[in-house]
């Protein structure tokens, strides 16, 4: 049985210190919630570089190749079109559509990759939303959440208070 321990902090420094302290114990699955991106949070949580650029590159190349092959197949191979005596397969004329489809596929793979792949959205319910005060996480609050074994919840909550959390809540029986 898992439980979530949530602590709200007033300032950034104690938040990062608490994240580092809990991470050093290695017992919890930690996360930081804030209304805007905090660059230092990645370091405090020990997060690695994002792999989104690779997804975008693969998407973009797929789009560009699709675009070129589409044009080559349709007007260059399947039904060769003679327009003004130019060769059916004329690469310079295929550049605009190749570029547009590359951008389109890259953008779609970033958007849906982020939402569906990296974020696991749509996910309208999450244990952290059980705490009414957590609403401040998108307004002005800085929150630390720890997913722990049910038995350890009280101990972690106590530790968070000691590390300077303004308020601490426990969400029992979290269903992941």
């Amino acid at each position, binding site marked *: 049985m898992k439980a979530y321990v949530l602590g709200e902090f007033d300032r950034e420094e104690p938040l990062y210190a608490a994240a580092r302290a809990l991470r050093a114990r290695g017992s919890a699955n930690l*996360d*930081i*919630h*804030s*209304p*805007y*991106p*905090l660059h230092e*949070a*990645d370091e405090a*949580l020990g*997060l690695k570089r*994002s792999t*989104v*650029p690779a997804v*975008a590159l693969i998407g*973009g190349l797929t789009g560009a190749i699709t*675009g070129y092959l*589409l*044009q080559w197949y*349709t*007007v260059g191979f*399947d*039904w060769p*079109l003679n*327009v003004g005596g*130019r060769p059916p397969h004329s690469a310079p*004329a*295929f550049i*605009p*559509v190749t*570029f*547009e*489809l590359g*951008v*389109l596929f*890259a*953008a*779609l793979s*970033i*958007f849906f990759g*982020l*939402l569906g792949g*990296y*974020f696991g*959205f*749509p*996910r*309208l*319910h*999450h244990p*952290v*939303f059980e705490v009414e005060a957590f*609403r*401040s*996480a*998108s*307004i*002005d609050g800085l*929150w630390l959440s720890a997913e722990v074994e049910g038995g350890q919840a009280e101990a972690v909550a106590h530790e968070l208070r000691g590390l300077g959390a303004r308020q601490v809540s426990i969400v029992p029986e979290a269903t992941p």
Partner: protein
Amino acid sequence: MSTAEKTIRELNALEGAPVLVGRPGDRALTDELLEPVLGKTRKGFVLLVLALLGGVGFWTISLLTTLFVGIGAWGNNIPVAWAWDITNFVWWIGIGHAGTLISAILLLFQQKWRTSINRFAEAMTLFAVAMAGVYPLIHLGRPWFFWWLFPYPSTLSVWPNFKSALPWDVFAISTYATVSFLFWYLGLIPDLATVRDAAKSRARRIVYGILSFGWRGSARHWRHYRIGYLLLAGLSTPLVLSVHTIVSFDFAISQLPGWHTTIFPPYFVAGAIFSGFAMVLTLMIPARRLLGYQRVVTERHLDNMAKVMLATGLMVTYGYMMEWFMAWYSGSPLEAFAFLNRLLGPYRPIFLTQMFCNVVAPQILWIPAMRRNEVVLFVVSILVNIGMWTERFVIIAVSLSRDFVPSSWGMYYPTWVDMGLYFGSICVFLLLFVLFLRFLPSIPLFEVKELRRELEHRGPGGTYPGSEES
């Protein structure tokens, strides 16, 4: 402001007006900027929506007339087969470009003043592109066969001709509309979560909860989000330049005097940004007063937008000069005639309006006080909007009306259907925009909070790492 403070401010000419007035807390900022969304419905809003619905009705009637009667309901003829419809199309698409410029290109250049106006400009882009998309579709004559434009395996065995600029247009415009929407929506997600959390009513919490997909501000999400957002900006930057370039190819790769010129791609892109900034100013100047956004949209923003408008206006002027130079230098009598016809022919008043609005009017923005004067800026922005519309009309319809053989010349006059499709589309655009201001957070909250944090972390005399002057 005391006299001493005033003097110091005047002395420090490089600092200028701030991008954010005061340093309110995050909650105060949220409450202030969400007031238009979460506050009570104002009487003025209802009246404005009703008034715009009248224009939407005019637009709908014109659209239905076009569908049931056909293109004959317009003033188009042979030789002027492209007239108001394509003029409107290019005008709206051009307006859309400022949104992407502000949100993507200025993001890459780390211009802080883009922060509070980018959402606003992106929404303008979306609605402008939506308006633009209507014209080529209805100009098909049988718009219910619009899918013939796409390459699909039909029983006719024939594919679109990819060596023509028109299928390029199909791909460019549809990609631009899609990517603009994704960029806009990705930016909205954290703010929709803020509306969900700040809202008191259950219905709002549910609706905005669904729209935000369950965003919880997680650092594990933010790190991917930041990179993804930046990459989308990076992709949008060449995209926006490609779109108007491809639109200009529709003209430039034909042989018509007045269209057949290599200056078109850069000159169209500059004109697009010029008209787009004019439209942002037209919308922003009243909106910041009515919605109380003066704290986040300051004199500094107006000043900077006016500067961009002035700069792109000069590029457009250079484009005009180059066109006239090439008309003479090419040695082609047809080319020279096309330009003399603009100045001396039957459409002379429209050409002179274009020159006044696009070349003369923006010059007042050289004076700093004028760039911060809302009335002057508003008037100039309206003039530029008019000027850029007349520019497209002069290029498209006037060039077509007198091309090669005098026996095939012909004049173009718009019908009421043409006017309904144009003036009606402005009302549809404004209606969409007013609804956006009422129901969605039009100032990007999370970015403004981030900006405030950055500005605050700059100690006295020192700068925050990675940030220049505010």
